[in-house]
């Protein structure tokens, strides 16, 4: 019936799973639409914001003192771009459930830890590469637009490289956070709502709390790392940890989501 398969050696393992996940992510349109949206928002909208800010500075030169050209150029990327990539992170896993593909995926590879790990690695790599590229492009484009104002940052200035690289890391982490939530909820809308809730709504809630509470809670939020890392001009936001420590807080949230997601993915009926 079949012109014979090569004799079997080894087993269905991580390498095959990674190849499979790469095929999966690159073979659906939603991946490309999301990445295009990420670029348009981070770079396109980012440039518009930078250009607008440049115009303002020229009109009101007095504002130059506290202006943070690095942060402004990255604003669209790390505030809004993280949402877009969170959508992709969620869909990488929730679309398998919504289409029923998960049953096929887990029946060809019943070792579930392998499946989830391969998904995480492939998506994580995509998110990391894209974030780094987009973050640097947004930064350089922004600085080019600020050239006429005389205020532009360069990577060699203190805090700037940390801001550009750091925002890429934070966005990639948010992407993985969303991925972990996807494994927990298995449902696209619930995952994205929760991700948005934690990254955007939680900080707002904390800001309307009485001061003493705020001061103790704000640095435990995963969203705080972005603010601290991208501040290159003026004092860092108050009541926050240092940049590395704040990043560790975000990493802890991501780790928790991934661990919970892994446990549930392995234990639940498919």
């Amino acid at each position, binding site marked *: *019936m*079949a*012109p*014979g*398969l*090569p004799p*079997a050696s*080894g*087993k*269905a393992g991580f*390498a*095959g*799973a990674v*190849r*499979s*996940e790469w*095929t*999966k992510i690159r*073979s*659906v*349109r*939603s991946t490309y639409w999301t990445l295009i949206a990420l670029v348009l928002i981070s770079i396109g909208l980012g440039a518009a914001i930078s250009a607008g800010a440049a115009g303002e500075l020229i009109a009101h030169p007095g504002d130059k003192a506290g202006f943070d050209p690095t942060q402004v150029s990255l604003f669209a990327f790390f505030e809004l771009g993280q949402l877009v990539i969170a959508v992709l992170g969620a869909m990488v896993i929730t*679309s*398998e459930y919504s*289409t*029923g*593909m*998960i*049953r*096929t*995926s*887990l*029946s*060809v*590879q*019943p*070792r579930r830890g392998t499946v989830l790990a391969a998904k995480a690695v492939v998506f994580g790599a995509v998110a990391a590469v894209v974030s780094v590229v987009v973050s640097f492009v947004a930064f350089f484009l922004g600085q080019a637009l600020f050239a006429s104002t005389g205020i532009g940052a360069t990577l060699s200035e203190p805090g700037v490289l940390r801001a550009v690289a750091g925002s890429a890391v934070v966005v990639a982490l948010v992407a993985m956070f969303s991925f972990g939530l996807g494994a927990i909820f298995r449902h696209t809308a619930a995952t994205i709502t929760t991700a948005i809730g934690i990254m955007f709504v939680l900080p707002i809630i904390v800001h309307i709390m009485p001061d003493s509470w705020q001061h103790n809670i704000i640095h435990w939020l995963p969203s705080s790392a972005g603010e601290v890392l991208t501040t290159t001009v003026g004092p860092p936001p108050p009541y926050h940890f240092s940049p590395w420590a704040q990043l560790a807080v975000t990493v802890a949230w991501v780790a928790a989501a991934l661990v919970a997601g892994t446990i549930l993915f392995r*234990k639940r*009926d*498919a």
Partner: protein
Amino acid sequence: MIEVRGLTKRYGDKVAVNDLSFAVEPGKVTGFLGPNGAGKTTTMRCILGLDYPDAGTITVGGKRYADLAYPMREVGALIDAKAVHGGRSAYNHLLCLAQTNNLPKRRVDEVLELVGLSAVARKRAKGFSLGMSQRLGIAATMLGDPKVVMFDEPVNGLDPEGILWIRNFMKSLAAEGRTVFVSSHLMSEMEHTADHLIVVGKGKMIAASSMSEFIARSSGTAIRVKTPSPDSLVLAIAAEGGEATTEKDGTLLVRGMAAETVGDIAFEKGIRLHELAAVRASLEEAFMELTGDSVEYRAEVPAVAGRGV
């Protein structure tokens, strides 16, 4: 070879499968029959490790499914033809599956050719008709050239040509020595395809036997006799250990003896016969008779139905 021992699976307080044990052997097509809700799909999902049993063990080729080195080379399963990402092309769908088990890329082209989907390989799955989706699912099961093939309702959505193709396909797989395990509701199809039957109802085993035995045991299988002297014949047959019942139109149905024996008895007693014929129950009749009590979700039968229930 699939071996299921003491399988029990509960969803909440509903027991879907209750201490089920059976073996599915190579070289034949084994039909898995049962009313809706009998636990067939749950059983198949447990075999594939998609659901975790509450009790019992299942082995495929002597090993737990999760311990197989290359699951796709051991088992090819089609549980749900629509369990495909619609945005992906048929080719990429099969490719991503093949890659998980280190199968060569050429297998994708080979199985597409096998099921007749080569022309639409690059089309996205969401544009497929039910029949095409079914064939894509079958292609996926054959990627690893597996020793065991499991199908859950494979003829769903296939046209008559497709149904015939599947029937011959399953028979040829069995003839090659593979284990073929197929669950279906289409009795008329099963009758032509399956060699062995496992019948379940309400999560429990009802019957496990060859097709011929299953049908022979049904009360629908009998010798139909028309005679001007029914009463004498009934007595004569009873005296020889057979059982004869009288139908409304006066015809006798004899069970427990062969047609030749009935003929001989009639001859010896001088009873005239006008008709002597072997009536074989259909699989549907045999099945309905056996599982009548086990139907979970029974709909009302409208009064205009062709046959009585």
